[in-house]
């Protein structure tokens, strides 16, 4: 067989193998728009613990050999973009109980769970992603007010030739966007936070929050 034909066949075989590959190494790239929101009259301290800073989704099952999805940059960008639109000031703190002066409330977010699904696994024609965060909320004395759990969901329709990296990246980006929307719109509706707000802000000036 001529060398050129051999090379073509080998190339075709490699493309075929790559298409069937069960490994995944995805670096999620996403951003959220600036929210249209009125800021709460509170000075926020945010504590990023080791889980939040370092969580990377990994899986080594039979069907998902060596899967790694890293969205550390995207989730840090999400919090850096969303929190300043929710509170009058935002400062990083070294501990959730730091009791820094001028801080009214402290958030400590962490990633509790993350799941993704491929079209062939769910027999649908969609890539899907779920991300569950737990956000511990402390008062200025370092006492925990509540732990708020929120889940972001994202899905994207399969398109011809859309590979799993692109499909999952879009689904995870949409899940992060959904998380951001829930943080902005649902934070002051959490019962424990609503109770805390009613005794820590001027209710005559902010009647909707009390």
């Amino acid at each position, binding site marked *: 067989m001529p060398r050129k034909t051999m090379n073509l066949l080998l190339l075709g075989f490699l493309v075929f193998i790559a298409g069937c590959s069960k490994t995944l190494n995805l670096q999620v790239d996403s951003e959220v728009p600036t929210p249209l929101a*009125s800021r709460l009259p509170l000075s926020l301290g945010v504590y990023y613990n080791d889980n939040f800073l370092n969580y990377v989704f990994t899986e080594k099952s039979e069907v998902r050999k060596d899967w790694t999805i890293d969205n550390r940059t995207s989730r840090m960008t999400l919090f850096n973009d969303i929190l300043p639109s929710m509170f009058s000031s935002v400062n990083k703190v070294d501990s959730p109980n730091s009791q820094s002066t001028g801080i009214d409330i402290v958030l400590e977010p962490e990633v509790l769970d993350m799941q993704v699904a491929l079209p062939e696994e769910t027999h649908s024609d969609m890539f899907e992603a779920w991300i569950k965060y737990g956000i511990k909320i402390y008062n200025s004395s370092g006492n925990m007010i509540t732990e708020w759990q929120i889940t972001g969901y994202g899905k994207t329709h399969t398109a011809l030739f859309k590979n799993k990296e692109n499909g999952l990246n879009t689904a995870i980006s949409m899940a992060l*966007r959904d998380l951001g*929307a*829930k943080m902005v719109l649902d934070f002051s509706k959490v019962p424990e936070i609503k109770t805390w707000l009613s005794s820590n802000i001027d209710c005559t000036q902010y009647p909707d929050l009390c």
Partner: protein
Amino acid sequence: MRPLIIFLFLSTILLGGCKSTTVIDEYRENTSTTLIHEGDAIVVLGRRNNSSYETEFDFVECVGRSLDSSLSGINVIPEQSFVDSMYPYFETSKAPMDVQNLDTLVQIPQVAAKLNDFNIRYFVWIDGFTETTDSSGAISCTVAPTGAGCFGFATWDDEANYEAVIWDFKDLNLSGKISAESSGTSYMPAVIIPIPLLARVQSGACSSMASQIRSFIQ
């Protein structure tokens, strides 16, 4: 001469079979106030809260583009640009599900100001999807050192079902609903090269729906 006649005969049958049929239905809530004026804006959005399907972005874009090209003096706001500008109020999990929710939303000063900046008159919410309902036949392709080629015949049926709900932002009420159902059969004969003879089901639904929305609001 005879093979040419047979070829033309078969081609005519196949092309004729690729036709798609579209049925449009309209429900008008209020006939007196549904009119758009020059300088007004309209936004076409997709409903994506159903877990079993997703209204395709390209279908929503297609309806928006068709309206934009046929409505002179009317601004048709692209879906993604609108949703980004209104973030997070029009995200899938937070978007108003009925016109009463929109009324609640406009009580928020930032939302009201942004919608006024857009000068929106109508919201058009599109819900639905296109699917392949049946397929048969087979095509096999072979690659060999001497060459490559395909042989066979495949056919499939597509169905598109969409509903557009139109909200009047000026009067904060439901103006009406338009539904489009389109179906068609596509064929792909393959003799060395596969020749797709596609029924344009989704684009037929898109153009019919855009045309009906245009006549609805003008």
